[in-house]
């Protein structure tokens, strides 16, 4: 009841048509070419992109973190330098203030002593002038007075002048002793 014509001792182990074998191989090669050139590269590209995206995300986060840390560091540094600057400026101002005060004090002292010296000199000059004028006036007055008292004319200028001088010299010795 097995009616297949030309049956070989190997039965179904031999291909019915040898072309089956070639067709199988050719079809395989065609699919392989599509897989090799198109399908696998596309899938692998997607996988690589996915890996890159995940890794990129992690790297991005790390970079952001580093950036934030750097910014914090910078801010802290700026803050501390600003503090230093402020204290330096305060210090400077203090020193400057002290210097200004000392300067002003010195100027005031100089001015006052200068004024004092001026006043003293003026007073001295006025006193000298007063002494001179007094001397001449007192001389005249004293002679007139003495002339009246003595009744003697003191017209003899020579004598009168000597008398006055003697008198004034006495006066001066007296005033020096009294002083």
């Amino acid at each position, binding site marked *: *009841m*097995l*009616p*297949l014509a030309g*049956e070989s001792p190997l*039965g*179904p*182990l*031999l*291909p*019915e*048509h*040898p*072309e*089956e*074998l*070639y*067709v*199988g*191989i050719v*079809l*395989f090669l*065609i*699919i*392989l070419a*599509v*897989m*090799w050139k*198109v*399908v*696998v590269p*596309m*899938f*692998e*590209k*997607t996988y690589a*992109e*996915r890996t890159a*995206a995940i890794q990129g995300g992690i790297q991005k986060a790390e970079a952001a973190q580093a950036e934030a840390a750097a910014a914090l560091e910078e801010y802290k540094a700026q803050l501390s330098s600003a503090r230093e600057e402020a204290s330096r400026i305060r210090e400077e101002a203090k020193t400057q203030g002290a210097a200004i005060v000392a300067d002003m004090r010195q100027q005031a002292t100089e001015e006052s002593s200068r004024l004092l010296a001026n006043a003293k000199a003026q007073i001295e000059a006025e006193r000298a002038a007063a002494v001179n004028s007094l001397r001449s006036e007192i001389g005249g007055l004293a002679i007139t007075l003495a002339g009246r008292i003595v009744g003697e004319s003191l017209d003899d200028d020579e004598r009168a002048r000597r008398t006055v001088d003697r008198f004034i010299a006495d006066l001066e010795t007296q005033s020096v002793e009294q002083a």
Partner: protein
Amino acid sequence: MGGLDGLILPLEGGAWPPGEHSFASRPLFPGVLPDWVNNHVAQAVIGAVLVILFWLWMARGQSVVPGKKQTFGELAYDFVRNGIARDILGPEFRKYLPLLLTLFSFILVNNLFGQFALFMFPTFSKIGFAWGLALVAWLVYNGAGIKKHGLFGYLKHATLPAGVPKFLWPLIIPLEFLSNIIVRPLTLGLRLFANLFAGHLVIVVFVVGGTMLLSTADQMGTAFPVPLLNVAGVVSILFSFAIFALELLVGSIQAYIFTVLTAQYVSSAIAEDH
């Protein structure tokens, strides 16, 4: 009978009992084209086209965040990529991935044709197709070994396991040669062919036999009464559904096994000696 009639004519009764003749091809254009342009070749071509279209469709418009279609495609792709290629071949798997994907999907689709209503015939129950793929696998794993170790280096690698004492060499070398170079492709092809051949034969027995029993009006020369024969036909047809389910499993497993073994042979051919 020609053209599409020859392609789509599933499970015709044919002569009873089923046997090798149940696997005979029907030329699509008898007298016009050679006899090998038959329904089996046609369904192999259709299978190849389906495989190519499937993968092109899955590979199209991929994005980093996969949608439903891409998730399914990646599931299928990763089954071969991670489950077979990377596990067995290690870091070199990329080079052999297209080959393994092709083997797996081409064999799987053609095996499922055994349960597919238009064809009802697993292509690889025709041994020519199975020999074709076995030859491809043989060329690939030997080629990979020769490329890695050189011709004589590979022969030594393949026929002489490390650490065998010298006096056993005359015994071991022919045995290993037979086992690694000659028997491997034969078993690859035969395993694929025989599983599908047997499965299809069983299905034909249950379906065709059941139909005959169910529709018989005489005793067919047996001692059983006709109603009993008809009941047996119903049981037989019902049971064929279980066989169909089993064949779905067998067809998938054979596609997997063929791919895994090919990867395994490549892996052992390019392995470093220890």
